[in-house]
């Protein structure tokens, strides 16, 4: 693809390709490019095959291509698997001594005039008086050399990183980088993006999960309770690694049930707290979500989606848990479902989740995806924090007072305040358990009324694209990134309607599009199309044209371009 350049590192899990990818992302960013990095890795600690792919361009990008210009592999399995992702006239660097390409790969290399270069990183490391593991840095130096970018920029990243680690010979690292540069003089690559943005070195690289953690910190979250589960785990890491500065209580609970109960206990008292998990852990939390609905204790849950049901494909991406989020918990109660698409969204929506949850006294589920959680987005800066909205009163009499909009006064448990019972039994206005016909009816209606006000207050979906498009994609989550990136390449009249407030659903824009007769295409990272089902349920409009992907991978730009080409 002409507007961008792609580099992929391949190795097995545990070989350090994330570290290499991290250096390269930052160095490219600091050289003035917009970057986006995507990781694939197996659910093992050592072995399998993993990749770290960096796309970079002279304009903003937030998705990947399927083809790479430079592939640098340090394990044979990754080279087997990724050879055919290299573009015509691309370059393969590898450090595998007695490696032979399969018949198919050999043909592919020949047909596409791909240059293959073996670098004996082990021998070179020895020459550099460095341990064999530093062969990785030689590979990194070789890749950088192909790009013909300023060496100092990369060296600075490597030196900075290793200076923080104990017992690392920095000079040896430098020698290895240099050996990598020297070794590659004979190969030329074309097609580097031209324009270089000035001052871009101050931009930031963030994963979606880091952004969620930062948003939570900015929004006054004071406790985090979680049980590890990919792709939510790194929220725990970020909040844990920064708790000294923030003073946040970070607790790894013994189960997801414990985590969500602790979060609800803290929210009840008035501290902002949340939990995050993936599908399986979320299933365990559902009873508490229902309890939050009934007791009207605010609750915030991040649901990081991955591919498949059961254990699924734990380290791969998808968007097949919308139904779980919409239906989790027995009984009838209002809820709000939000969906992040990138780092900035993740940062803002976690704050929005707290505001909505506290204001409406309901459970709020923030959906994210492995593609968002663990990919590295390059952004200029994070927006100023949202204003905190809590909907609190200083004191009260009836905790479950029947009101017009369904929102009852909520005041925090504190010495001297009127005490009350927060009850998961159906209750009267004082919280006292009841079986009375009128109480049951009026309380159920009171709670549901809250969603009417909520629906009115949330923003409409955002439309991207020309005024009179011929095709409009409708989607949520990370699909936005691939579609918007595709729109930069293909100048056909394509539009995209993006939802981040998923439930309650604003259907007006869909109705408008439908009335105009615009061709609508639902784009979903799943097989069955839960979002289309929700749209139909809420708007009455059935959208027959769909673009679904359910192979554990996110939408790549090429997927969208290919689809448009055939329309």
């Amino acid at each position, binding site marked *: 693809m002409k507007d961008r350049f792609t580099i992929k590192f391949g190795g097995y899990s545990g070989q350090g390709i994330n570290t290499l990818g991290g250096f390269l992302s930052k160095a490219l960013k600091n050289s003035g490019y917009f970057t986006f990095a995507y990781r694939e890795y197996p659910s093992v600690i050592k072995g399998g095959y993993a990749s770290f792919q960096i796309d970079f361009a002279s304009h903003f990008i937030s998705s990947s291509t399927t083809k790479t210009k430079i592939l640098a592999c340090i394990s044979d399995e990754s080279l087997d698997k990724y050879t055919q992702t290299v573009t015509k006239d691309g370059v393969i660097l590898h450090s595998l001594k007695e490696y032979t390409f399969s018949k198919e790969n050999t043909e592919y290399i020949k047909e596409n005039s791909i240059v293959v270069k073996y670098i004996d990183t082990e021998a070179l490391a020895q020459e550099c008086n460095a341990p064999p593991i530093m062969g990785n840095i030689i590979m990194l130096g070789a890749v950088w050399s192909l790009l013909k970018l300023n060496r100092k920029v990369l060296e600075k990243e490597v030196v900075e990183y290793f200076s923080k680690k104990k017992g690392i010979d920095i000079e040896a690292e430098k020698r290895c980088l240099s050996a990598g540069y020297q070794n590659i003089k004979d190969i030329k690559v074309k097609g580097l993006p031209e324009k270089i943005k000035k001052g871009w070195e101050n931009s930031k690289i963030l994963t979606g999960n880091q952004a969620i953690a930062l948003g939570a910190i900015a929004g006054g979250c004071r406790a985090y309770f979680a049980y590890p589960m990919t792709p939510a785990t790194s929220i725990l890491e970020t909040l844990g690694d920064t708790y000294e500065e923030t003073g946040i209580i970070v607790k790894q609970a*013994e*189960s997801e049930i414990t985590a969500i109960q*602790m979060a*609800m*206990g803290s929210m009840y*008292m008035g501290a902002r707290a949340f939990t995050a998990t993936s599908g399986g852990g979320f299933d365990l939390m559902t009873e508490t979500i229902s309890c939050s609905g009934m007791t009207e204790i605010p609750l915030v849950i991040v649901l990081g989606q991955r591919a498949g049901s059961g254990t699924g494909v734990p380290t791969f991406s998808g968007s097949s848990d919308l139904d779980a989020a919409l239906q989790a918990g027995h009984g009838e109660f209002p809820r709000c479902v939000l969906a992040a698409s990138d780092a900035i969204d993740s940062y803002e929506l976690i704050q929005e989740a707290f505001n909505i949850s506290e204001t409406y006294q309901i459970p709020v589920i923030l959906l994210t995806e492995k593609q968002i959680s663990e990919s590295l987005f390059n952004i200029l800066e*994070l927006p100023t924090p949202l204003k905190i909205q809590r909907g609190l009163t200083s004191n009260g009499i009836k905790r479950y007072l029947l009101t017009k909009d369904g929102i009852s006064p909520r005041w925090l*448990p504190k010495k001297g305040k009127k005490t*009350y019972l927060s*009850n998961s039994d159906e209750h009267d206005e004082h919280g006292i358990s009841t079986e009375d016909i009128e109480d049951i009816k009026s309380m159920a209606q009171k709670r549901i009324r809250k969603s009417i006000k909520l629906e009115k207050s949330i923003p409409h979906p955002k439309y991207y694209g020309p005024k009179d498009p011929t095709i409009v994609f409708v989607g949520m989550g990370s699909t936005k990134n691939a579609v918007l990136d595709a729109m930069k390449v293909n100048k056909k009249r394509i539009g995209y309607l993006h939802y981040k407030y998923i439930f309650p659903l604003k259907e007006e824009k869909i109705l408008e599009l439908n009335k105009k007769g615009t061709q609508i295409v639902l784009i979903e990272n799943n097989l069955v199309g839960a979002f289309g089902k929700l749209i139909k349920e809420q708007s009455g409009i059935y959208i027959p044209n769909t673009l679904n992907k359910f192979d554990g991978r996110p939408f790549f730009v090429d997927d969208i371009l290919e689809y448009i080409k055939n329309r």
Partner: protein
Amino acid sequence: MKIDISDYNTIIKNTWCPGCGNFNIHIALKKALVDLKKHPSEVVFSFDIGCNGNGGDKIEGFRVKGLHGRAIPFAIGAHLANKEMTVIADIGDGGCLHEGIDHLIHAIRSNYNVTVLIHNNQNFALTTGQITSTTQSGKKMYAFPDGKTEGDINIGELVLALNPSFYAKGYSADAIQLTEIIKEGIKHKGFSVIEIVQICPTYNRENSSEVLSSRIRKVQSTNNIDIARKYVLDTKHIYTGVIYQNKEIKDYYSNLKNRKGKKTELVEEVKNYGISNILNKIQ
């Protein structure tokens, strides 16, 4: 603020069976809180589901009646948010040893400053008398005409195996001693497990107050775990009192290095925070 036991009473009608141990447990609980000069607005009760949970509207305080088996983790979340409040989890043998036994185990090892009252009436009473792991062996119960098939859980033995900081056992027919035990539990800075042998006149008639009272042996508090173990392993008798207390184990919150020296509670810290330092740290 002068506090009287009537401050803890509510106008809600009692729905427990005549002779239910819950009456005395509530009297002891209220009396303990009054003796400790705790105003109801300084106390958070996390009630489980069951006959004990139906006590949620029969006592004043900030009360939550949540989910079956989950009274303990909710209470912990509440405690961490505001440790100035006295937090009490109130749960039965069913919720504590069945649905939520993991919470009990991990709360003991974590040693949060929370008091848990385990109402042990040896059955699931509110669902009309099913067996629990403390039901007397061989006893015929609902849907088990041949009696309980499984073995028992000895709460004391379980708790003492987990290096607890406080384990006490009270008896619902002795509200005076129970009051003192609850006071000690609340005063103890750590996770205080108080098992209460509770009379259930409807589904556990074999263990009437006459039968139980004859087995009671009151003991003095000890920090010797071997002595405590002897008490709990002697199943012929029921040893009551503070069975074991270890003041050397620090409570969870005191172990949090990032909360050292903080003068505020989490609930007082909800505001917007600048993140530039954190953002730079993770770059």
